[in-house]
Every structure is written in C-alpha cells, then in structure tokens.
C-alpha cells in the first residue's frame, strides 16, 4: 500500500487471521489486510459488527487466543520488525511503543486494586523509577486525561468510577509507558453522546500534543469524520476502500462504503418523507463468505465477474486512495 507520509510508524502488509476449526478447513476472519499509520496520524478502521476490526488490533498486540492463527507478510512498528516477534520482543513493545484502549474499561481494569496501584504498576513496568516518583507521575497522568480532583480519584476502585472516568483512567494507563501508537478499539461506543464527545476531544488533544499515531476502531461514521485523517473501510475481514476521510466521504468508490454512508439518516422523514437507503441482507460470517467479492450478494452493481474472483485492493491515486471493486462508482456521484 502506498502511504502519503515518508516513514510510517506502523506498517502492516498482508495480515491474515485464521480461525482454526477442527473439522473444517481454516477460515480467514481477517484476510490479507494492509494499512499504515504515520506519526501524529489517525487511521480509522471502520466497519460493521464482525468485520474483523478488533481481531486486527488484537493481532498487532499479540493478544489473540491460541485458537487463532496470525500470518503476515510484513509488520513494522517504529522501525522494528514485528512480523514474527518473540514473546520478549512483544512484551518490550506492548505498552511502551504501542498501547491499547478497549471498549469496556471495566473488564480491562483490575477491580480489586485502586487506580493509583494500577497506574504505578504500569509506570514502573516501563520506567525504573521510585515508587514516590511513580506516584507523582500517576497523578500527572490523571490530570493529563482531565480527571477532576485527580488527587482524590487515585484512591478509588474502578467500579466506583463512572463510565467516562473509567475510560479516562484506561487512557491514562495506556499513556503510562509513553507509547508512540495507540490502538483504540471502540473507546466511546459504550459511552453516552456527551461523554463520548469529551473522550474523543481528549484523545484528539493528546494525540496532537504528544504526536501519537492512532488506529481508531469504530463503527460510527460520524466519529470517523471527527477524529480521523484517513479511513480504511472493512467488510467481512477485508479492507474494501481506503483513503483520506474527506475523499472517501465525498466520493466513495466502493458500493459498500457508499451504502454505509447513505444508510445513516441525514435529514428528516417528517419533512420530506424520504426513505433511507437500505443495504439488503446482512454481513456474512467469515465461514459463509462468498467466494468472489464478499459484498456481492448485497451489491446492486454486481456482475458475473464479481462472483468469480476476489477484487484486489488497487491504488487509485498517489495519496493512498484505494478500493477493491470491479465496478466502482464514478468519481462524482451523479
């Protein structure tokens, strides 16, 4: 894949994740996915449930269960080759070069330890500093993620915090090792609109101030427009379209991207009575993915060749725009 920026922070080429099943042949839940993230850049990975977004992030962190196999042509992170890392390498990188924020902070924070204990542990894992210094840094981190009355929050247990506060603590934990890349897996999906707005603002500010690269996973197109510079649209384990956010939203070339944008309500039915554009059917599970283009059964533009072969992701311009469709939409939607 061609990337606009000279030296990407994260470069992934040909990543596949295989579901190993006993009786049937392996199924690729994520199938030959390539993308890159530059320093200070946010790439949004967007797609519906089951597209393989979380698996992709977990594969980078090497947090997948053993039942899943990972194969990649090349993964480099901050100049390091991570295609087939050893356990030690991955431990050295996890948290300090690359950190992850999950959708549900409660399940990723330890319920029986105070916020301070967990932060101090995370800090001292990456930096050989004294406990007192680590405590000072823990407080700094909580202030950095704008937790009001941070000093008093240090002694709290995670379940005593509201959803938004927990997510802020999660972000503080992720920042503890001073990472360069943040993988954020639907960090605001479980939160209310107003709180989710706050968390997104916070992530964007932190990214700007710290120059972080970010892989932002979401299914919310509105969030994509707000946070991301570039976007990769995933459908049934494959990237079907990628490019800058402005380009992809203004002139989607892949029918699925267009359908996804159109399916969201834009105006008022009460005013003009327009129906929403539907995409018929549902996303196939990996095992039932059609042999050609995965979107073919739902696609209005499908022709015979779409069934015969998987459309490759072909570059469309020098700025990293690419799409995987034999019969793409025209540049300007008439």
């Amino acid at each position, binding site marked *: 894949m061609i990337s606009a920026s000279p030296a990407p922070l994260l470069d992934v080429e040909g990543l596949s994740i295989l579901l190993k099943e006993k009786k049937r042949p392996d199924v690729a839940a994520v199938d030959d996915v390539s993308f890159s993230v530059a320093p200070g850049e946010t790439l949004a990975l967007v797609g*519906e*449930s089951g597209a393989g977004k979380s698996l992709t992030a977990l594969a980078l962190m090497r947090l997948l269960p053993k039942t899943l196999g990972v194969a990649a042509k090349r993964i480099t992170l901050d100049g390091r080759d991570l295609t087939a890392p050893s356990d030690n390498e991955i431990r050295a990188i996890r948290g300090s070069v690359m950190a992850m924020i999950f959708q549900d902070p409660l399940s990723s924070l330890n319920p029986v330890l105070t916020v301070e204990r967990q932060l101090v542990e995370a800090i001292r894992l990456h930096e050989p500093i004294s406990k007192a210094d680590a405590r000072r840094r823990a407080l700094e981190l909580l202030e950095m993620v704008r937790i*009001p009355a941070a000093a008093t929050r240090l002694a709290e247990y995670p379940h005593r915090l*509201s959803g*938004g*506060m927990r997510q802020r603590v999660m972000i503080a934990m992720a920042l503890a090792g001073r990472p360069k890349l943040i993988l954020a897996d639907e960090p605001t999906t479980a939160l*209310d*609109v*107003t*709180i*989710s*707005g*706050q968390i997104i603002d916070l992530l964007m500010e932190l990214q700007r101030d710290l120059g972080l690269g970010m892989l932002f996973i979401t*299914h919310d*197109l*509105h969030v994509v427009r707000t946070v991301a510079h570039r976007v990769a649209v995933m459908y049934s384990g494959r990237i079907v379209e990628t490019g800058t956010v402005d380009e992809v939203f203004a002139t989607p070339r892949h029918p699925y991207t267009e*359908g*996804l944008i159109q*399916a*969201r*309500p*834009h*105006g*008022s*039915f*009460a*005013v003009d009575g327009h*129906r*929403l*554009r*539907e*995409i*018929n059917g*549902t*996303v196939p599970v990996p095992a039932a993915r059609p042999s050609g283009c995965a979107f073919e059964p*739902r696609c209005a533009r499908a022709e015979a060749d779409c069934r015969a072969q998987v459309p490759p992701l072909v570059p469309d311009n020098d700025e990293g725009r690419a799409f995987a469709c034999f019969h793409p939409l025209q540049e300007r939607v008439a």
Partner: protein
Amino acid sequence: MTERTAKRLAIDDMVVEHRSRGGIVHAVAGVSLDLAAGETLGLVGESGCGKSSLARAIVGLNTPKSGSIRIDGQPTDTRRRGAQARQIQMVFQDPYGSLNPRSSVRELVEEPLSVHRLGSKAERRARAKELLERVGIPLAMHDRLPHQLSGGQRQRVGIARAIALEPKIIICDEPVSALDVSVQAQVLNLLLDLQREQDLTFLFISHDLEVVRYVSHRIAVMYLGVIVEIGPAEGIWSLPLHPYTRALMQTAGDAERVAATGPVVKLASELPNPLNPPSGCRFRTRCPLAIDRCSRDVPSLEDFGNGHRVACHRASEWAPQAMSGAA
C-alpha cells in the same frame, strides 16, 4: 402538527421512583407529554435520565407514583394491562433478550392473538403468517427459534409481535441501537412504513440524535427525569435553545452551524447523582451559563412559539426576537 382536541396519548405529570440501595431514585420527576395520532415524538437524553423508566410506566411495567395517562381522552389505568394491551405496545432495544428463546418465530407472533383469544387457531396462524411476511420474514423462517435469526430479523419479529394486536401507539425504546448501520436503515424504514399504513403513534427513544431527527415530528429532550426542551424536530435541530440541548446538538450535527445560533456549550462533567438532584435547575451543576437564580428557582417550560418550549431562565437571551416575542 395540527392541534386536535383529544390527543391520541396524553401523559400528565408522571412521576416514577425506584427504590435502590442508596435511596429513592426519582427517575421521572413530573413529565407531561402529548402525542397526536400518527405522530412520532422523539425522546432523547443521556443514559440514566429516565427515558426507559417513563416508557415502562406508560406500558404498565412500572407503577408510577403519580400521574395519569389518557388515550383518546379516556383515562387509562396503567395497572390493568389486559385492557390496555390492545392500545399500546412496545418494541424493545435488545433483539436478543426480548424474544423467548424457546418459542418459534410463529408462536411468538401468535402469542398476543391467543392471549386475547382473537380468532380461531387457524385464523391466528394465518394472521401470524401475514404479519411476519409484512415485516419481511420469509416463510422458511417461521419455524425457527430466535437464536437462528440475525439481530435485524429478530427485531422484525419483535415488531410483528407488537403490531399483532393493532395498537394505536407503539413505544419504541432504542429499537435500532443494537443493530448494524446497514440493518438500522431496514428497520427504520419498516417502522415508518407501518406508521403510515396504520396511522401509528410512536414514542421513539434513542440516544442517536440523527436517527431521532430523521423519524420524529417533534423531539423532547430529557435531563435527570424532567423535560428541558420540546418542540418541532427541525426547530430543535436547527435552533436548540436549552443549554443542554445545545451541547447535545453540538456533538451530533454540525457544530459550527449550531454555534452560530447562540452560546457554545461544552459539557465538562458528567451526570450528577440521580439520588440527589441539584436544586433549582437540575442542569445547573453542568451548565456553563448558570446564574444565581438557577440554583433557587426551578425553570418551567416556556413557549417560544410554534410549540417550541424550553425550561431555562436564560433561553430568551439567545432566542431570536421573533420567537421570544411569542412567549
């Protein structure tokens, strides 16, 4: 919306309380709403503001502490569910939890008919088939169990079950929140088609402001158990007056356009403890525009014309002249 003499659904001063470990939660603290026939009222607000509590009180799942409900002018006792069932039905959020895992799709849709002893067995069967076909469940799936359907299909079954008794009013509590974007559009279209066909009245609860704007004729904004703003959907969308609504709209629509119509409101903090709501205006602990008076006086809903009503002491300061003149 043209005014009609007897509203299809009139909710008057509804109060719902929950006993919880910490004390009594005033989940709904005096809400009055009117819905005309064929109208959709969208209800938005943060998690925990009492939307579901209100919905459940209307369908009789909660016993309200006080307040009354009238359907076409007739007072309705919410506890006598049997009689009311034919008038008000509900579509739930969770397409996984709202269908009995042991009943087939057909049984689920026949159930309301058999409960009310409508028609013979064969007639009920035929009607269930008709209903399922109407909501787009193919015949081959009628004998399946819920777990053999996709989320969107389950939600369709829930809708078929809700319209089986030909109700006048359907309470939709986050009916598309658990669905994929592409499936959301299918279900929203279905709901709106049914509304047009059967002149249904919807109370449509959602936290997705764009969805609410799309389906609603009017929108009510709820905060900590009270309605803080209510009015025509396009009016609220383009000219939100309550600071809380303005904050919501700035996160959803295009922030700049909203900002041009009045003060920018950024919410820094989170919902206060519902066990102990603030005095005066309930929003004042988070309101960047609060003044002294806000902690003393409870603001009441004031009309700014065209049925756009706002409960804020300061709204008239940024309401356009034409509107505040109407107050």
